Structures are given as structure tokens and as C-alpha cells.
């Protein structure tokens, strides 16, 4: 099996997903079974053989990019834990979904870090939240919760501090809804438990070593701490979590030799709120406004990924109307506008990080404000848009963007919406990008700071599951809008921005080029909006139900968001008639997984460059920590 005939092997790299599954089933019949559960796809791999099969999938079948690795707890439905992997080819096409199951008591699945380094943080997350051990993982520590946390929050039998009911809507709200505040009913402190083997004295320990105790990868704290005086030439530097350049509460622990960084480990979870557990309590609809709070710079894109995933599931049922053309055009327009917003913001704050303090960012933010004004007029909120619905949208474009407020300053704004849009897309945004390029692209200081800094090679970018501008800046022309198109992207004319160098400057160039491509897309959207004026955004003319039921199955909806591949893995465990709440709701967050190669990108650079490298990855902590 390790030596398949050379001729079929060549064909295997380009075989369709079905052919690949067929190959795996015939060649490895002992380890691979088809996942024939209703609405599920892919294969189930026997745990002990997972490494072999994964190697075949990567090397022979050519699925070189592990997009997502996540766990599901099937308590009450087989009582096993399951790891779900989505592997793609960087040349494009659909996912090869493979799964490995283990029992809940002694959950163990071999680590795939040796095959895809991109599995590193995702496996740590699965250990942290789901309690699956990964033999072979170099640093299997909790990543979002703290060491000493009791339990694994995403398990179905784990309950949070303010637990009310398994699923929303809660019965206490209606019809006998006597108001109470959660903290009065359930005082925090009485329901905190600690694992038996934890030393609680550690929490009182104010010495330096406690700060680094939960770390492992690369930073040998003890060795360095043991040295004293000036004899040491290596030093541990802690940056964050409260550091202005980390874009939120994010922490990096680095060892420096003189000024040069020898290793770096990202530490996160300070903004963790168990978004996925909340998502499982929620109904499907409830989750849409929660997705806004992930990457709050580009909430339209977050909405899009989630509704795509749920629409995929809904399309398994009989009563499903796909969105109308106008709805799709509006979605794409909103998403492209938010991509521009995202890149303006990312470039602006990256410049802040490398020292161009706030002058450029404020020039860009002026234009961002106009786009947000538009979002506010259409969706009702500048950043928490909550605009998309399953099979439709919150509302069509208003005829006029205007304010009739009771506050002050009536009559301030009153524009025709299409005119406002046309002017913004044809004049204002291109002008802003021109200004941005004039200000920066040939700026010698910027060139010296960014060229050759934070280099991520093509191979590493793919292997570390980097996504978005980070991946394309390393010469991989992988854009989901082209690789696995969704919505109306196939008919739109645009290019995938790509740069070969893999340094900070390449990422900057990719972002600028992507903004220009977004403008190009938007210019094609405008006539489509005019042509469909008057058409309903709902296929059947009326808004969708407030409590949609979703048929049994799994779906992975992914979009190319500003920061990279944003994926939603949603499992519905509904019986006949479907379920009202997702069984599993997982977010494949680009900000989180793009941090995996942070360590290798930083090695050998100065501390001041680390800040810039982090800025060039472009993370949002709302999405990193979820």
C-alpha cells in the first residue's frame, strides 16, 4: 500500500474527491469506511491507522492543505467523540472529509502535527475544549482555557456557570417571564471547581516562573531563569496581554538573544467566551448576530459564511428555496465592501505597528467611515451588521440613505442610495486606494522595514494552514472565491492577488491588490443591482421563518473573508422535521490558525519587527479567542 503503481499515482493528484474516496476504500479497506450517516460526507478512518491514511491523503492524493480539524461530541448518539478533518488541494476543488472516532472515556487520536503543522493549534483546541488527547503532539497544553480549568467545556455534559437550560429559547422567558438577573440567581464562585491534582497555591504565586508555567513550545524558561546576573545572553520577554501592539488581549512570550528573537510562543484565550458552546445553546437564527462578534471588523463576511453553511444543510430538506439573484448580488456587494474595510484597517494598523503612527490610518478610516455609514443605513448597525438570513437578507437597500432622527441635526444626510453607492465605488474608494499607494508603496522607510521581514515560505504557508493574504503573500494563489466558488463569484471577473516573496511587504501588496479586485467586483455588481431592482430578496417573496428547522446532517460552509478562510462546521442532529438548534457549531477562525506559523516567521528578527509581523498577519482577537 505504500508503493502504489506509479501511473495511477500521477492521476490520483487530480482525481475527484469521489475517486479519491474510492481509492482509499479499495486500497485501505481495513481502515477506511464510508460515512453513511444521513446527510454526512467523507470517510471514517480507524484511529490506529489515521497517520498512514493522512499521509496517503496528503502525498498521494494531493490534498496538501488541512483547512479545519475539529471535534464533535456525540453524547447520546453513539457516545463517541469524533475528530473531523477537512483537507483541500491548493489547486482548488472540494474537500476530502475524513473522521476518526474515539470513545469518550479515554479519548485518544493520533496527532497529525507531523503531517500538517496547521493541526497544531486546532488539536490543542480540541484537547482543551473537548478533552481528546493527541499522542505525538509536541505541546499538548490547553490553549484557550487556563491550565487548572476543570473539565472540557464543549462536551455535551459540561455546564457553564450561569447554566439555565440546554437550549434556547428558555422556558422562563414567556409566558411567565418574571425578570431575574443571572448573577443574582447563581452567584459566581460557588460553582467553580478545580481538578484534584491542581496546586491552587500556584494562583497566589507572584514569582516570574508562574507566568510561564503553562507554556511549552520552544521556550525553555527554566534554563534561562536559572541563570543570573549579566552572564545570561538569552532573555525571556513577555509581551501582552495588555500591550498596545497586540491588537487586543493577546500575549507573546519570546526569548531573545541580545535583540534577536530566538523563539516565540503565542498565548491566547484572554477573550475566550466559548462562542461555540453558546452557539450550540442557540437556535440557528440566534447565531447570526453572534457571528458578527467574531471578526468584528468584517461582520458581513462572518454572516455570509454562517448562512452558507446552514443553507447547505437546509438544502438537504425538501422545503428550501435558494436565495434570489438580487439577494446574492447584495451579499457579494456587502462582503466585498467589508473586505475593503478590513484591508484598510489591516494596512492602517500594520503601519501603526511599524511606526507610522496614526497619520495614514486616519486617512484610510475616513473612507471606512463612509462604508460603515452605508452599512448602518442598510443593515442598521455600523459593525454588528446582522444582515444576512437563511435564504435571504434582513432587507433590501433603502431607496434613500437618510436620517430623520429626533436627536439633533435633522436633514444632515439624504442621498439616493444607488447614487451614493455608485459614487463611492467609482470615485471615493479608488481614490483612497490611490492615495494609500502613493503614500506607501514606494516609501523607502516602509520598504526597508518590511522587505525580507517575517518571511513565510510557500511550503510552510501551506503546511501551517495559513489562509488569506498570509497564504497568497507566500505565492500560493489560493482564494476560495476561485478555488471552490460560492454565491455568484463564478460569473464575476476578478483576479486572485498573489505575491511570491512571503514577507510583510508581499502581504501588504496582496492586500492592496485585493482591494482593487474588490472594487472591480463591486463595479460589476452595480449593473446587476440595477437590473434586478424591484426583485424580491426572498425566493418566495416573504421573509423566512423565525425558528427554522434544519434537517439532519453536517455542513462546512467557508468563505474567503478579509483575514482568510472563514469556515463554519455545523452539525444538525434533528430527527424527522429537523432540529431547531445546532448539535455542533464550530468556527474555523483564520485569525486563530494564522497564528500557528507566527513562531517560525519571527525567528531571527528584532523585537520591534515582531510587532510588525503580527500586524501583517492581521488578527482580530474576537475571532482568535472566540
Amino acid at each position, binding site marked *: 500500500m505504500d508503493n502504489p503503481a506509479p501511473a495511477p499515482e500521477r492521476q490520483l493528484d487530480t482525481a475527484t474527491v469521489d475517486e479519491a474516496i474510492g481509492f482509499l476504500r479499495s486500497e485501505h479497506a481495513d481502515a477506511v469506511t464510508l460515512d453513511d450517516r444521513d446527510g454526512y460526507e467523507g470517510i471514517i478512518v480507524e484511529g490506529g491507522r489515521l497517520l498512514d491514511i493522512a499521509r496517503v491523503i496528503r502525498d498521494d492524493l494531493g490534498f496538501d492543505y488541512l483547512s479545519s480539524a475539529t471535534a464533535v461530541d456525540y453524547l447520546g448518539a453513539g457516545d463517541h467523540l469524533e475528530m473531523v478533518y477537512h483537507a483541500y488541494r491548493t489547486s482548488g476543488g472540494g474537500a476530502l472529509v475524513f473522521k476518526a472516532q474515539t470513545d469518550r472515556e479515554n479519548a485518544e487520536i493520533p496527532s497529525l502535527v507531523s503531517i500538517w503543522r496547521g493541526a497544531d493549534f486546532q488539536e490543542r483546541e480540541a484537547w482543551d475544549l473537548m478533552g481528546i488527547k493527541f499522542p505525538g503532539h509536541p505541546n499538548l497544553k490547553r490553549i484557550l482555557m487556563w491550565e487548572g480549568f476543570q473539565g472540557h467545556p464543549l462536551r455535551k455534559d459540561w455546564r457553564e456557570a450561569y447554566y439555565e437550560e440546554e437550549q434556547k429559547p428558555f422556558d422562563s422567558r414567556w409566558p411567565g417571564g418574571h425578570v431575574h438577573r443571572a448573577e443574582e440567581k447563581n452567584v459566581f464562585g460557588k460553582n467553580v471547581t478545580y481538578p484534584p491534582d491542581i496546586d491552587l497555591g500556584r494562583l497566589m504565586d507572584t514569582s516570574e516562573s508562574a507566568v510561564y508555567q503553562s507554556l511549552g513550545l520552544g521556550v525553555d524558561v527554566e534554563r534561562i531563569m536559572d541563570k543570573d546576573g549579566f552572564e545570561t545572553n538569552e532573555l525571556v520577554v513577555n509581551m501582552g496581554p495588555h500591550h498596545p501592539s497586540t491588537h487586543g488581549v493577546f500575549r507573546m512570550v519570546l526569548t531573545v538573544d541580545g535583540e534577536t528573537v530566538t523563539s516565540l510562543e503565542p498565548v491566547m484565550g484572554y477573550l475566550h467566551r466559548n462562542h461555540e458552546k453558546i452557539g450550540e445553546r442557540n437556535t440557528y*437564527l440566534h447565531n447570526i448576530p453572534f457571528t458578527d462578534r467574531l471578526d468584528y471588523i468584517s461582520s458581513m463576511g462572518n454572516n455570509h459564511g454562517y448562512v452558507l453553511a446552514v443553507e447547505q444543510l437546509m438544502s438537504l430538506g425538501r422545503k428550501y428555496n435558494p436565495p434570489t439573484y438580487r439577494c446574492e448580488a447584495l451579499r457579494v456587494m456587502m462582503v466585498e465592501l467589508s473586505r475593503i474595510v478590513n484591508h484598510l484597517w489591516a494596512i492602517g494598523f500594520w503601519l501603526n505597528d511599524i511606526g507610522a503612527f496614526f497619520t495614514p490610518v486616519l486617512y484610510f478610516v475616513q473612507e471606512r467611515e463612509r462604508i460603515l455609514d452605508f452599512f448602518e443605513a442598510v443593515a442598521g448597525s455600523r459593525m454588528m451588521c446582522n444582515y444576512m438570513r437563511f435564504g435571504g437578507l434582513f432587507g433590501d437597500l433603502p431607496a434613500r440613505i437618510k436620517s430623520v432622527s429626533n436627536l439633533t441635526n*435633522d436633514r444632515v444626510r439624504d442621498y439616493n442610495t444607488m447614487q451614493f453607492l455608485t459614487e463611492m465605488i467609482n470615485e471615493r474608494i479608488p481614490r483612497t486606494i490611490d492615495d494609500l499607494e502613493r503614500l506607501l508603496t514606494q*516609501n523607502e522607510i516602509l520598504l526597508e522595514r518590511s522587505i525580507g521581514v517575517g518571511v513565510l515560505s510557500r511550503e510552510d504557508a501551506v503546511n501551517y494552514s495559513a489562509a488569506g493574504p498570509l497564504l497568497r503573500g507566500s505565492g500560493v494563489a489560493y482564494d476560495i472565491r476561485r478555488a471552490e466558488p460560492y454565491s455568484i463569484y463564478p460569473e464575476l471577473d476578478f483576479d486572485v492577488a498573489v505575491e511570491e516573496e512571503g514577507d510583510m511587504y508581499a502581504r501588504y501588496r496582496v492586500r492592496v491588490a485585493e482591494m482593487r479586485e474588490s472594487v472591480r467586483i463591486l463595479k460589476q455588481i452595480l449593473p446587476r443591482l440595477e437590473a434586478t431592482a424591484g426583485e424580491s430578496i426572498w425566493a418566495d417573496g416573504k421573509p423566512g421563518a423565525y425558528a427554522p428547522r434544519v434537517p439532519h446532517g453536517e455542513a462546512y460552509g467557508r468563505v474567503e473573508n478579509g483575514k482568510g478562510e472563514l469556515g463554519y462546521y455545523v452539525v444538525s442532529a434533528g430527527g424527522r422535521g429537523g432540529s431547531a438548534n445546532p448539535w455542533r457549531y464550530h468556527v474555523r477562525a483564520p485569525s486563530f490558525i494564522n497564528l500557528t506559523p507566527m513562531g517560525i516567521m519571527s525567528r531571527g528578527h528584532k523585537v520591534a519587527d515582531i510587532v510588525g509581523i503580527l500586524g501583517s498577519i492581521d488578527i482580530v482577537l474576537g475571532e482568535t479567542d472566540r
Partner: protein
Amino acid sequence: MYGTGLAKGLMLTLRHFVESYVDDVRYGFRKYHHSTDNFGIRQGTKTKGVITVQYPDEKVAVPERFRFVPFLIVEDEDHPTRAGKDWCTSCGICAKVCPPQCIWIVRGNDPNTGRPVPEPEAFFIDIDICMNCGFCAEYCPFDAIKMDHDYELASYDRTTHHIHDKERLSKPNSYWRGIAPTRAYEEMLVRGTWEHKDAAKEARRGAASSRASAPRPAAERPAAPQAEVASEASASGETAAPAPAAEGATPWTEDDAKREERRRKALERKARRAAKRGQ
């Protein structure tokens, strides 16, 4: 030549610097005086230079669709038949569709019959929990709960001030039409009337029954006043004696009884399911 890129960029900074003064000169510093028109210049799409807003001296007016903490619509005081009455029928959809579950509703019961009546006895929104998503307003079948434009809700004590009760939440219908005329008009088109759905239904029913009892064509002309009388009768009937409705029992109580029955069954099912999960 080394440094040309830098110089080009600095020219842009210089341009922004000059522009802010050019605009000042053009408008003769009128831009900064606190008046609507001047503010419009500064916040318009053609403006250059300084665009900042001096909050709280100046406020950007919010667009119609802007959403902040919800409020409940009650009928205006000068409404001929339903003055001060809630639009809310306490159907509970807003409470169910609320993602953070910040809405509490106590459904009212008729003190005489014990049956539920279509108006809330109490209504609470914990604005600390509210995430301003607007689902309650979007999915309310009676257009009774709306998102407000008033975003200045800071207070010194969150424990007492941040749970809005029905009194605090209620705002007259005319307020909603004032802050969102286009949306109010669109909702009217969907509803088919400027009145509350139920009131309109009552009115139609009243008109129909009066036609039935008085089948002469002359009776059709004054249909509108009769409708008002009919809805008035039903409105007063809810608090006092059972309404002397033309077709016997008031239809909503029947519906509600059925709904209550369905709900009870659903709760039982849910409890059974929960018990099964617990095993």
C-alpha cells in the same frame, strides 16, 4: 532616486494639511458653527479636511434603520378607540427569537375567566444583555416592538436602571412614525392598514357582522363608524364583562386556548426529551 517615494507620500500629507484650511476658507469657518447646514457640509460626501464630530455638542443623526435597545409601541393618547393600549399581544415570539434571551414577558390573564388576554401584564428587557440585533422587531407579527434611535442610556446604577420595565419601554406610535417614517409606511403596506392588525380585524369583522344582521345595502355606507364602535366594544369588553360580540365568543380566546393546549403538549414533549437525555 532614493527618497522620492518618501517625498511623494509626504506630498499627500501636505495635501491633507492644506485641504483642511482650504475648506475652512471656502466656507469661512461656517463649517464649525453648530447648525444643521454647516454640519451637513462637514459630514457630506464631498467634504475635505476635518470631518470629525464634536460629540456630544454635535451628533450625527442616525439613519432610519439604526437599531438600539427596543421599545414597545402603545397607541397614541389621541387615538379615538384604543388610546394608550399596547400593540403587543404577548405572543412571545420576540422572547423566543431573542438571541441572548433578554426579554421577559408575563402574559396577562383575564381576572374573571382566567384565560390569557392578548396584552402583556409585564414586559422586561435587560439592556445589559440586549445585543441590539433587532430580531424582536424584525419578527414581531404585530409590529409592536421596535428598535429605538436613542443610544444615550448611560446611568450610574446598572442594577436598577438597566432592566427596562413596560412603563419605561412604552413609547407612542407617533414616536415610531416620527423616527422611521419610511419603515412605518412599508409596514403599513404589509399590514394593509395603519391600525393595529387585531383592531383592523375586529373592525372588519364588526363591519361584516353588521352587514349580516342588516343586509340592506344602505347599511354599507357608514361601515367605518360602525367598525369603530365594534372595536371599541371589544376593547372595553376585555377588562369588564365578556364582550357582546356579534358572533358569540370572542375569537381570540379560542385561538389562545388552542395555543395554550399546544404549548402544554410541547412542554410535555420537551420534558420527556430532557428526561430521556438525562438518562
